[in-house]
């Protein structure tokens, strides 16, 4: 949560992301455990290195067993479809030239994106990259640990890992809501997602919730 106005550094981003990296690393361990049998070690590491999105990777691996290849691919890409609007939102803030923009865009995940938001739709690219690198390393290291020592860890659900992520997103949300519009967008986004959960495949409720940001079109006090 970089302070608006003052430009941040990659170090600021890395420091802000450090506590989140612990949770992301543990989630990576859980992914490694699950993926060891379903994907094999090499494919699991390549998956974490290229896709770098926990929820989509979990969905893909769990559906590969039951829903088949097509189901796994569609679910994972739907879950990651939110990165289309997220990419649009950070685009004006990313550095030149093109190759740096592309690298920075890959380091944009839910957590680094939220940390780098300075308010008003402006993002600090250095904070984004610093936070993204820390989270990326934590995700890869966690995946590797889970693959190597899965049988020692047991069922991640017994440890409450599945409740850790909504809590993490909640803490990030608390840093994002500064005014009534932000609160209205959050309530509306949550309501849209909840309403669609029983009817739509995973991922659709999340991308559909992005309509809630149209609250920003309402004139009046911010």
């Amino acid at each position, binding site marked *: 949560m970089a302070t608006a106005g003052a430009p941040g550094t990659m170090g600021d981003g890395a420091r802000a992301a450090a*506590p989140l990296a612990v949770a992301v690393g543990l989630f990576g361990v859980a992914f490694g455990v699950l993926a060891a049998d379903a994907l094999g070690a090499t*494919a699991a590491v390549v998956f974490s290195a290229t896709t770098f999105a926990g929820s989509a990777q979990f969905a893909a691996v769990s559906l590969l067993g039951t829903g088949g290849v097509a189901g796994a691919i569609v679910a994972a890409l739907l879950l990651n479809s939110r990165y289309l609007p997220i990419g649009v939102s950070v685009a004006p803030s990313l550095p030149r030239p093109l190759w740096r923009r592309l690298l920075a865009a890959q380091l944009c995940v839910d957590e680094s994106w939220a940390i780098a938001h300075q308010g008003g739709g402006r993002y600090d690219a250095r904070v984004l990259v610093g936070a993204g690198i820390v989270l990326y390393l934590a995700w890869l290291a966690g995946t590797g640990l889970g693959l190597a020592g899965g049988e020692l860890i047991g069922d991640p659900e017994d440890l409450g890992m599945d409740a850790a992520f909504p*809590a993490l997103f909640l803490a990030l949300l608390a840093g994002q809501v500064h005014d009534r519009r932000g609160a209205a967008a*959050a309530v509306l986004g949550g309501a849209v997602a909840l309403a669609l959960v029983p009817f739509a495949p995973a991922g659709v409720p999340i991308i559909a919730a992005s309509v809630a940001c149209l609250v*920003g079109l309402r004139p009046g006090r911010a």
Partner: protein
Amino acid sequence: MSEAWLVVAIVGAGTIALKSAGPVLLGGRALPPRVMAVLALLAPSLLAALIVTNTLGGDREIVLDARAAGLAAAVAALLLRAPLLVVVAAAAVVAAGVRALGWLA
């Protein structure tokens, strides 16, 4: 190509494309103020949706289980201004405890 590698390749390439599309197509152009006002609210909208789907989401059903108890603990920790790791740990510990006691499946 095995099924596992097919999934890894397509999802990996697709995710990179989704993340790159905005920055490549828009370049570094500044967006109109109205668009910025909308995009400023994308973070709270999507984060709230992620909280809801990760807490209550099941296989096309709303599920009330130990995750909800964990989230309630996280809300309490946030209201007490606990640091982020404490918020996350509170959720995990409470969810694990509730599950171990067999209160919510």
